């Protein structure tokens, strides 16, 4: 019951002189209910990797299993797989095309052949989920909305298909801090309450550290390290050689520990850091 990748290799422009190896011998497994972060610099292959999870790309070598089923085989019902493994691309607002917000969000559910009543229920639910009032905006044109709202409508379009797994490629790119917080909050809620498995692709350690439970670090088409936040962030030097910085709070705690303060270093959000520092200071007073 998982997404499982075995020895996946992907070439672009295979068998031409322009052949590039985008991914090399990747093996990983994602369990239901997890919140996964996939991190790497632009061009590292992270977007290419996640497009294998719902069959948008076929591996040049290797296998992709969704709950035990090999989705690289011919004759697999890819539509069903894409309903179960939802995918929100970078700048999803650029895929909006319908005349009304309702019709745009309903596009996915209609494609998977739902009855019109179910479609309506799902559209309303999805719009509420992303924090938009469906009664108010459903009949408006998506092109009248602000950038942040457009993005949320586009996300609703994927959520309305009620996927079990949700892949997001840089969902917070180009958003202001508030918009970013809202999206991360929404993802956390989906994971906690709706039990959706989330796979968040990002180049920002800060962002991934706030929400993910387990991370994979991709560099030049290979998984170079993976594990819990603590396990990965303890390899500060390795991460920096490939151009990824630790979250600033984690760095701060590392530095505090270096100068002899008795603080934990497996800290990834400002809230945790504040608490740890407070308890450290109080602890001293007690002594």
């Amino acid at each position, binding site marked *: 019951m998982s997404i499982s990748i075995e020895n996946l290799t992907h070439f672009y422009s295979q068998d031409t*002189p*322009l052949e590039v190896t985008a991914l090399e011998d990747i093996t990983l497994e994602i369990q239901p209910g997890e919140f996964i972060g996939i991190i790497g610099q632009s061009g590292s292959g992270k977007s290419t990797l996640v497009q294998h999870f719902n069959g948008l790309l076929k591996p040049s070598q290797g296998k992709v299993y969704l709950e035990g089923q090999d989705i690289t085989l011919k004759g697999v019902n890819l539509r069903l797989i*894409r309903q179960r493994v*939802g*995918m929100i*691309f970078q700048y999803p607002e650029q895929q*909006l*095309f319908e005349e009304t917000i309702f019709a745009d969000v309903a*596009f996915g559910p209609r*494609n998977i052949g739902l009855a019109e009543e179910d479609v309506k229920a799902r559209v309303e639910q999805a719009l509420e989920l992303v924090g938009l009032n469906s009664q108010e905006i459903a009949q408006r044109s998506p092109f009248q909305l602000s950038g942040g709202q457009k993005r949320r409508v586009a996300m609703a379009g994927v959520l309305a298909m009620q996927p079990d797994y949700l892949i997001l490629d840089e969902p917070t790119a180009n958003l202001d801090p508030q918009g970013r917080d809202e999206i991360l909050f929404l993802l956390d809620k989906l994971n906690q309450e709706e039990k959706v498995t989330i796979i968040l692709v990002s180049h920002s350690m800060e962002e991934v550290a706030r929400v993910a439970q387990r991370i994979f670090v991709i560099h030049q088409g290979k998984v170079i390290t993976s594990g819990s936040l603590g396990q990965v962030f303890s390899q500060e030097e390795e991460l920096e050689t490939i151009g990824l910085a630790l979250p600033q709070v984690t760095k701060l705690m590392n530095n505090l520990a270096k100068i002899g303060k008795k603080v934990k270093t497996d800290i990834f959000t400002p809230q945790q850091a504040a608490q740890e520092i407070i308890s450290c200071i109080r602890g001293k007073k007690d002594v």
Partner: protein
Amino acid sequence: MFRNMIIGQYIPRDSNIHQLDPRIKILSLFILLTGAFLVKNFLGYLVLTLFSITILFLSEIPLKLFFHSLKPILWLIIFTMIFHFFLTEGKEIARLGPLIMTQEGLIRGISMSWRLLLLIVFSSLLTLTTSPLGLTDGLESLLSPLKKLGLPVHELAMMITIALRFIPTLLEEAEKIMKAQTARGMDFSQGSIVRRIYALIPLLVPLFISAFRRADELATAMEARCYRGGIGRTRMKELKLVPMDGLALTLVFALTAVALWVNRYGNWSA
């Protein structure tokens, strides 16, 4: 899926052919194409073919890449050949059911596809060795006499440059939107023709919106840099003819003349 298209793609190298003035290369192409149309005999084709092979080697373009770029046109050539083989009237030399292959057809088929191949090889040699920018600069310079007739030559060249610049961008974008809609359960390759045409709406609407947005942004960016058309505009890279260019053009003239001259000899006329 669009990544594999490399027809007409520029391949930067440092060869003599790359360094030729784009105007000379455009003129040469024009002369050689005219030659290929006028030559009516295999000996003439042979001269032009040998010349094109020489240019190909001088241009330092990897052979594998060159032949790969010809692949899409192969079918056109094969069909031309087959149609001529069987649809030309004349002396019968073979029979395939109701289809009759004639001697005249054989000769014409081979010569037409050879000619077609020459046209394509020469044209792709130009685009493979000349950057799109060089190409439009050369075109602008060659067409500049027409300015006197009121033709907006600079503006046309600018439009061509911009169009060329955005082809890969739009292809990439189309691929991205297609994937996004596929992820929402869209199927672009199944169903009746009507359904497939309707299936294009979710692709075309976002593509047009983004093309207009890009056009708007580009216009603003150009205006912010005080672009106001061709009048009084100077260039960072002036086109300048060097002796090598003269030599190249003379060679092209000479070889085309040879190809036309040998036209009179040999009895394989086609």
